[in-house]
């Protein structure tokens, strides 16, 4: 698989960048030069490359590099954790729906459709209203909608797989359903959901950034890339670095993730292949 990833230069690039950024994020607490919340009002709005602050400082004199690293950490946390959770539940329900069909399917599909019908933004806004702004509301919102996406894909895959000889055979041999699903169906259905997952991670990251940007997401002093841009907005004419750095970071991370996604798709799902 890695060789095939490597085949396409862009995909390779995406993979490498993703890995690097993710690592930076994970290591943030240990590698960031400074406490992301530590202020030095008197040395605020320093430009990049100023002494002691590789990427300069923000309006409160906090070290931008440290905040970026922790911001990445948070983005990654939101992106991957939420996606993982919704993939798990969505996948499970999709699997059940696709495998058992009939009433089970009708019931689950109905639920899927209903959740699918809700605008993510609405769910997010309401949850933020109810739970107060913060990560929890945000992640709940994303999870509540995304699982349906995974469920749909998984269901489709399983419906198709179910008719394949090896499954029929297994059933004929009287192997119990759970075992068949686990051993024979799931492994073949996973790739498609993984592909979707890689895109959902990117989406979740953008979404978190967007909501933190308008102040409905992560609350200070915790750094979120989106929220950093939001705060930097007021200083765009005074110190445009402040909004440029986190912006570029998000863009690079998301683009890398998308490229990675394309790669995964080309490998697992040639049907969807762009070229």
């Amino acid at each position, binding site marked *: 698989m890695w060789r095939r990833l490597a085949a396409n230069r*862009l995909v390779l690039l995406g993979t490498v960048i993703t890995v690097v950024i993710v690592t930076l994020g994970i290591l943030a607490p240990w590698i960031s030069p400074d406490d992301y919340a530590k202020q030095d009002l008197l040395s605020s709005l320093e430009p990049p490359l100023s002494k002691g602050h590789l990427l300069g400082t923000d309006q409160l004199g906090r070290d931008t590099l440290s905040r970026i690293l922790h911001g990445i950490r948070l983005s990654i946390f939101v992106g991957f954790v939420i996606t993982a959770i919704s993939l798990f539940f969505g996948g499970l329900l999709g699997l059940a729906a696709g495998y058992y069909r009939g009433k089970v399917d009708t019931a689950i599909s109905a639920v899927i*459709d*209903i959740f699918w*019908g*809700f*605008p*993510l*933004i*609405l769910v997010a*806004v*309401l*949850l*933020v*209203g*109810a739970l*107060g702004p913060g990560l929890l509301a945000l992640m709940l919102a994303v999870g509540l909608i995304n699982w349906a996406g995974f469920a749909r894909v998984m269901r489709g895959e399983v419906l198709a797989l179910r008719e394949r000889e090896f499954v029929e055979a297994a059933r004929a041999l009287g192997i119990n359903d759970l075992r068949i699903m686990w051993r024979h169906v799931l492994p073949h259905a996973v790739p498609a959901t993984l592909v979707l997952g890689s895109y959902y991670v*990117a989406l979740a990251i*953008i979404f978190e*950034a*967007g*909501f933190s*940007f*308008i102040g*409905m997401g992560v609350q200070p002093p915790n750094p979120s890339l*989106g929220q950093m*841009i939001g705060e930097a*907005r007021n200083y*765009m*004419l005074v110190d*445009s670095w402040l*909004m440029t750095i986190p*912006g570029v970071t*998000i*863009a*690079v991370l*998301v*683009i890398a993730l*998308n*490229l990675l996604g394309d790669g995964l798709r080309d490998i697992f799902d040639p049907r*969807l*292949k*762009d*070229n």
Partner: protein
Amino acid sequence: MIGFILKRLLYTIVVMFIASVAIFYALRVAPGDPVNAILNPTAMEQARAALRARLGLDLPIWEQYFVYVKHIFQGDTGESLLTGKTIPHVLATYGLRSLVLAGTALLIAYAIAIPLGVLAAVRRNSIWDQAAMFFANLGMGIPSFWLALLLILLFGATLHWLPIEGSGDLRHLILPASVLSVESLAVTMRLMRSSMLEQLGQDYVRTLRAKGVRGRRIIWVHVVRNALIPIISLTGLRIGWLIGYAVIVETVFRWPGLGYELVDSVIRRDYPVAQGLSLLLTLAVLSANFLANMAYAVVDPRLRKG
């Protein structure tokens, strides 16, 4: 087809009902109430209590919901607690603005994405193709709100060409619509390209060439039309996404549209407005998907019958 329509209708009703309950509950369990938006923060408790009672906020939530539904069936859709504007009026105003924004964005996106997608597919692996795909990746990666700030910085702060916020004349529409269109543009272009490539490989293309039909006609009359089908099904989701995700862009440019006003009304705890807008938003998304399905059938004769 009729059966399909009826099913969607039922589905829509169910979702709307669930939504209305969820929204109603979520809004009222949220801490804070409209009183703080209507009265002075320093106003004494007596005044607050009086207002709460007048708004019926002292009843238990399920009872309030019951009252709300009763009123609706009596044709009284209520009015904004803050401004006293009737809900239909509010919905019309903000719904329309959102529609204008999302519509324009979609128009911009398609006007650019489709030709570029075709070009990229026809001149596959050419410099055109690579450039197009590069920008597609960029467009999908750049967070819209950040792009918005960059444009404000350029066209508003530096060149002083365009207003940086608010709504009104066309000039106000340019920046938000462009920003909102970028992501759709990128996605559509990619889809159009792959869809074109798929169609170009079809047997009927060979037949057309064997008939001696001109290449340009084959592309624009036959292949493009076939390739558009998936785009149409995407459109539904797109509109939903645009109307929803627009909240971020609307907030950056303070374009008073549906999403923006929804956030505002939730913050002000203007329950009737928030409820109305939420339901409208849900309905918009549902019907967008529905329309996409319809359009599908119109373009593709195979789906017309049955």
